[in-house]
C-alpha cells in the first residue's frame, strides 16, 4: 500500500486539495528566513522606512562593509572569537548527544534503583526557568575555578534536560526483544548501545543536535557571566556588542547583517541534519 520510495513518481489530480493547504502554509513557514536575508541587504532608508517593508528594494552591501570595518578596528582579531565559538559549539553538541543517549539508554532499558525518581527530577529541571538559576550557577562556576576557561562555556550547557527527555522517549520505543536477542547472542551493554540503540534513535539524536547547537551558538549568557577576558568570549557575544555599542542608526544595519551571518550556520547545520532525520525516519527499522 505504501511505497518504499519517498516521493511518488507521478503527479496525481487527487493531490490538488492537499497542495491548496500545504503551499500557503509552507510559505508562512519560510517567512522568517526570507525576512532575515532581505533585512541584511537593506540600505538605511529602507531599514527605518515606515510602514516597515518586508522585501528589500535596492539591495546594498553597506551593512556588511560597515560591520567588517568595525570588526577590524577592535583590539582582538575576529578569528579568535570564531575559534572560541567553534570549540565551544562542537564540544557541546557532541557531548550532549553522547551523554543524553547514554543516559537515556540506561534510564530506559537497564534496571537499577532510583530510575524513575531521576527521570522525574529531570522533568522538573526541564520546567524550571533557566534564568532563575543564573546566580547559583555563577557562584558554582566561580567556586570550581572555571571563570575564563572553555569549561565555563561548555559544561553548563551539556546536560540538556529537554534533549534528555526527547531521547529517552524515543529509546522507550525500541523493542526490548531486540535487546534481549542481542544479549542472548553474547553482546555486552556497550555493544547493544552502539549497534542497536544508536542507529535506532538517530532522528531523536539529530533533533537534539539541532537543539543543542541552537542553545550554544546563540548563547551570550556564558560570555557575559562566566568570562571577563575578551579573548575568551564567543562570536555571538562579539556580534551583539558590535551592533549595540555603536550609534543606533548604523547599529541597526550592522545588527541586521550580523544576524544574517550568525543565522547562516544554523541554516547549514539544519539542512545537513534534516536530511539525516528524514532519511532515518523513512527507513527506520522501528515497527
Amino acid at each position, binding site marked *: 500500500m505504501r511505497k518504499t520510495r519517498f516521493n511518488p513518481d507521478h503527479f496525481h489530480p487527487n493531490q490538488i486539495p492537499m497542495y491548496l493547504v500545504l503551499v500557503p502554509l509552507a510559505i508562512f*513557514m519560510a517567512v522568517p528566513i526570507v525576512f532575515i536575508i532581505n533585512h541584511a541587504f537593506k540600505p538605511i532608508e529602507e531599514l527605518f522606512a515606515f510602514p*516597515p517593508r518586508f522585501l528589500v528594494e535596492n539591495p546594498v552591501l553597506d551593512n556588511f562593509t560597515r560591520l567588517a570595518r568595525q570588526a577590524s578596528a577592535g583590539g582582538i582579531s575576529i578569528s579568535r572569537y570564531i575559534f572560541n565559538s567553534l570549540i565551544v559549539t562542537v564540544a557541546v553538541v557532541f557531548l550532549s548527544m553522547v551523554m543524553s543517549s*547514554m543516559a537515556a539508554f*540506561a534510564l530506559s532499558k537497564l534496571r537499577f534503583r532510583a530510575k524513575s525518581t531521576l527521570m522525574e527530577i529531570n522533568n522538573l529541571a526541564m*520546567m524550571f526557568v533557566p534564568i532563575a*538559576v543564573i546566580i547559583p*550557577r555563577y557562584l558554582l562556576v566561580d567556586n570550581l575555578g572555571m571563570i575564563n576557561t572553555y569549561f565555563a562555556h561548555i559544561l553548563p550547557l551539556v546536560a540538556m534536560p529537554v534533549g534528555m527527555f526527547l531521547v529517552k522517549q524515543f529509546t522507550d520505543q525500541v523493542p526490548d526483544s531486540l535487546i534481549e536477542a542481542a544479549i542472548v547472542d553474547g553482546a555486552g551493554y556497550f555493544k547493544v548501545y552502539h549497534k542497536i540503540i544508536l542507529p535506532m534513535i538517530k532522528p531523536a539524536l539529530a533533533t537534539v543536535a539541532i537543539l543543542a547547537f541552537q542553545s550554544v551558538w546563540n548563547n551570550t549568557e556564558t560570555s557575559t557571566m562566566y568570562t571577563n577576558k575578551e579573548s575568551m568570549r564567543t562570536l555571538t557575544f562579539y556580534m551583539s556588542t558590535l551592533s549595540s555599542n555603536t550609534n543606533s542608526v548604523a547599529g541597526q544595519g550592522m*545588527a541586521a547583517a550580523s544576524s544574517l551571518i550568525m543565522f547562516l550556520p544554523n541554516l547549514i547545520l539544519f539542512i545537513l541534519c534534516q536530511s539525516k532525520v528524514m532519511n532515518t525516519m523513512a527507513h527506520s527499522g522501528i515497527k
Partner: protein
Amino acid sequence: MKKLRIGLVTRREMKGYVFLLPWLVGFVTFFLVPLVQSVWYSWHDVKVTATGLKMTWVGWENYRYIFQQDTVFTEQLTNFFTDSVLRLAVILVFSLVIAMMLNQPLKGKGVFRTLFFLPIIVVSGPVLERLVNEGATAVPLIESYGVNGIVEAMLPPMLARPLSSLFSQIILVLWYSGVPILIYMTGLQKIDSTLYEASMIDGANGWISFWKITLPALRPMILINGVYTLVFLATTGLNEVMATINDRMFRSGEPGGGYGIASSMAWVYALSLGLALIVLLLITKERKGKQIAIQKTGEQIAIERMHAERARNMKRKGGKKHGR
C-alpha cells in the same frame, strides 16, 4: 544461591550507572545544585553586595508577597496558562494534520517536510525577537478586518483574551509546530500498514481508521509533543512571566524586587507548570483503558493481518492469471 543473585543484580546496576554517570555528574552540578540553592534563596531576602551575597531569613514571606501583594505576577501567570491551553490545542492538532498530509504520497513531499521543520532554527534563536518586533508574526488580514474586535465583542473576556492573543500571534504559534510535526511523523511511519489494509477489508473508511488505528497508535507521541510544546512555550524568551522574573531579579531594594523574590516566583512558576503537566498526563492516560483493549486483541490483529496477507496474495495470483 541468594548471594549470587544479589551480586548479579548489583553488577547489572553498576553497568547502568556507568552509562548514566557522565550525564548525572553534569546534571547534578549544573542543574540540581543551583536548583536546590534557589529554593534556599526563595526563603531569604537576598542582597548582592561587593563582598558577596547578603541573606536574611524571611521564611514564606516572599511567597506571601507574590500571592497577596504582587498583582502583576499572578495575573501574568493565569494569562499564560489560559493562553497555553489554547495554543497547545492548536499546535497539537495543526501538527497532526500536517504530519498526516505529509505522510501521504505527494509530489515534492521532501521540500514540504523541510519547510515545515525549518522554523525550529528560528524560534529558538535571537532572530525571533526582532521578527516579533517587526510584526512579522501577525497575519495582517486578521487585524485589518478587525477579527479581534469581533471576538472581544462577542465573547466573555475569559475566552476573548486568549483567543485574540492567539490570533495576533498565529504565525508564531504555527512556527512552534516544527518538532511536533517531526515527532508525529516518526510515529505515523511506525504504524503497520497491514492494519489499515485489514480494516479496509473489514469495511472501515478513512475516518474510522483514523480514530481506531492512527490516533491510538499515536498516543505516546501526543504525550511527548504535549510536554515538549508546553515546556517550550513556558521557557521561550518571549514569555511575559519569564521577562518579569528576569526583571525582578536585578531590582533588589525595590518592593517586589531582588533575587529572593525572583527565586520564589520561579518556583511558583515551575510548580504550576508541573501541575499542568500532570493534568496533561492524566488526560492522555484516561484513555489507557482503550489502549489495553487494543493490546488484548493482539490475536485479532494477527488474524486480521493473516486475512490481509491472504487477500493480497489472492489479488497477486489473480492479477498474474489475468495477465497470462
